[in-house]
């Protein structure tokens, strides 16, 4: 549970992650899994770049007039019989949900996948108030059994191997069953979870989902899923609660279509996810199923204060997960090392905004600035630029080490004196080249032992790039 505001620090957590064999085995599948599927989907769709532009445009227009779209959303939602609640903080949102549940005598809550519920630490809070929470997305269900948190925003149990899931199911499902389920293939495990969760959908008095987006012109919430659990969650119980953050609203259904064209392709490499469902208000008087109440909780949690800052572009994020699927750092350490709800590059850009630069100061530094995240981001969020913004904030607040500050000061001074810089680097290259010997590499190097502790440092060619360039012309 992400209760409270504790955050595991990246430097220690990442070292542990590198030594975790199960995690490393699971992460090795990223290349042939998410990455290959996205590449195929983008190659199949020749208008992908235009679709990206249209999606970025939809969200940019939204954010420019966010207050108006939210007011429109609220008005349309209420016209259709829905109720809109506003929450500034995670505590406010938790309280709103709790009151909705307790005032209606809800004992069992089924849940579709929602990262915002993780952001506000909802499950632990509700369980403390004796409400049973049943995660129904398979990945979320697996980590609920394991008492862990998601390590990926669309594949929460991506860090688990199949033998680990088999073990979890054995521990949790076998006590009530004379004959255990067969557990030889992933298909067996999917069938087992389906069988166990079927009854739970019907037992639940309320269903809670997130929203991939909200539509202002119709007052609707939209979820995009593959399993169908979200639809059962928002159809079968008598109360449907939607938990969404304020930047999720888009003006029109057509803007939603623009986002849908890039979402599944970027996320799972599908042209379209199996289910895209638009919910508007409670069941109508002539309907024979559907919830009789529909509530939307709109959470701010710091997002309104991001507008107008250089980090505001993170608010375009549609939570597809492409940035983490393609990040070499995420691929090496997985999601838990990031220490809070949102892992990977988007986490490194968003977490400092939500928790503060001090608590999250390591995350913007957990990047080589290679830029793959920005390259694959369907919403063209300039993630490396945002990392540099947070790094500058960290420096301004004097949160980095004295050594880092000294090094930066020296570098800054040198860079401002080009002749000295050229002289210094030219001399250094020459010396390093001459001293390298026949192996052409260093096993130890003063001032670079952070590098040479785990790998050799290749000897420079003897001249700087600038020297070579000047000789050439």
């Amino acid at each position, binding site marked *: 549970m992400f209760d409270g505001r504790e955050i595991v620090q990246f430097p220690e957590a990442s070292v542990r992650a590198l030594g975790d064999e199960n995690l490393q085995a699971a992460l090795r599948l990223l290349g042939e899994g998410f990455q290959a599927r996205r590449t195929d989907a983008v190659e199949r769709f020749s208008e992908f770049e235009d679709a990206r532009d249209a999606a970025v445009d939809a969200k940019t227009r939204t954010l420019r007039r966010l207050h*108006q779209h939210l007011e429109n959303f609220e008005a349309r939602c209420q016209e259709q019989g829905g109720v809109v*609640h506003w*929450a500034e903080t995670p505590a406010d949102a938790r309280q709103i949900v709790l009151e909705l549940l307790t005032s209606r005598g809800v004992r069992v809550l089924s849940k579709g996948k929602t990262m915002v519920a993780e952001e506000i630490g909802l499950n632990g809070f509700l369980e403390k108030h004796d409400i049973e929470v049943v995660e129904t997305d398979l*990945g979320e269900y697996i980590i609920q059994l394991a008492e862990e948190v998601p390590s990926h925003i669309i594949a929460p149990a991506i860090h688990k191997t199949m033998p680990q899931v088999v073990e979890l199911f054995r521990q949790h499902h076998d006590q009530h069953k004379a004959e255990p389920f067969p557990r030889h293939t992933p298909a067996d495990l999917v069938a087992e979870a389906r069988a166990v969760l079927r009854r739970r959908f019907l037992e639940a008095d309320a269903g809670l989902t997130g929203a991939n987006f909200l539509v202002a012109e119709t007052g609707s919430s939209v979820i995009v899923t593959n399993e169908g*659990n979200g639809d059962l969650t928002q159809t079968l119980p008598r109360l449907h609660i939607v938990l969404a953050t304020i930047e999720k609203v888009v003006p*029109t259904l057509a803007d*939603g279509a623009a986002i849908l064209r890039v979402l599944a392709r970027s996320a799972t490499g599908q042209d379209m996810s199996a289910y895209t469902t638009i919910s508007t208000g409670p069941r109508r008087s*002539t309907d024979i199923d559907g919830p009789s109440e529909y509530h939307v909780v709109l959470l*701010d949690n710091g997002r309104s204060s991001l*507008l107008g800052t250089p980090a505001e572009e993170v608010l375009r994020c549609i939570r597809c997960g492409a940035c983490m699927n393609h990040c070499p750092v995420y691929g090496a350490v997985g999601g838990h090392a990031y220490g809070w709800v949102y892992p990977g590059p988007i986490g490194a850009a968003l977490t400092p905004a939500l928790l503060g630069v001090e608590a999250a100061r390591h995350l913007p530094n957990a990047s080589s600035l290679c830029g793959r995240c920005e390259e694959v981001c369907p919403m063209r969020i300039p993630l490396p630029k945002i990392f540099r913004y947070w790094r500058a904030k960290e420096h301004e607040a004097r949160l980095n080490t004295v050594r880092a500050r000294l090094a930066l000061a020296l570098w800054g001074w040198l860079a401002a004196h080009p002749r000295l810089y050229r002289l210094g680097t030219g001399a250094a290259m020459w010396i390093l080249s001459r001293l390298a010997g026949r192996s052409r590499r260093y096993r130890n190097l003063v001032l670079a032992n952070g590098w040479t502790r785990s790998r050799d440092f290749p000897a420079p060619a003897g001249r700087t790039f600038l020297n070579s360039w000047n000789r050439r012309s």
Partner: protein
Amino acid sequence: MSAARERILGRLRDRLGEGSQESPHPSAAASARAGDVGVFCRRLEAAGATVERIPEDAVPQAVAQYLTQRNLAARVRVSPALAKLGWDAEPLLETAFGIADLDDAAAVVPANLGVAETGSLVHVSAGDNPTTNHFLPDHAIAVVAEDAVCADLEAAFSAASVSAMPRTVCLITGPSRTGDIEQRIELGAHGPRSLHVLVTRK
């Protein structure tokens, strides 16, 4: 709670300025452009569905045949909207109308529209078209008229919301699936394991 509302909207107004209402690009502008039925069927198959093109009056027969081929019991839940398809023509096929429950292995459901761009079926909830039937049974058999296939998402959205929005508009693109165990795709996570689509012509 309204205090929270005022503070959130106030912060947004401070940062964004009151400004004029920006007129949104209206969705309704998209006309109900007809879509290519062949493309629609190919995309549906690519998404893991099976597709059959049949005359409108052959639905009961096609359902009975499908159940036999799949080795399923000759018993289906039929959404009330499809009650008048002449089910008596298949006396060996047991039909029950209304909302599906956990005992229903297969359901016959209507799709109000098709989307050629994505190979999606569009379910629009109504008194005779409960959402449950699309999700609870193991096998979904969907019936869609070929002249209800529209070109793209915008056309489908504008057709689905032409009067007031219903409780549920759902785009269904293939059977239920998950990749949550070692990123391997498995069908039938919580919704139907199989989706068979009957595309009907007049």
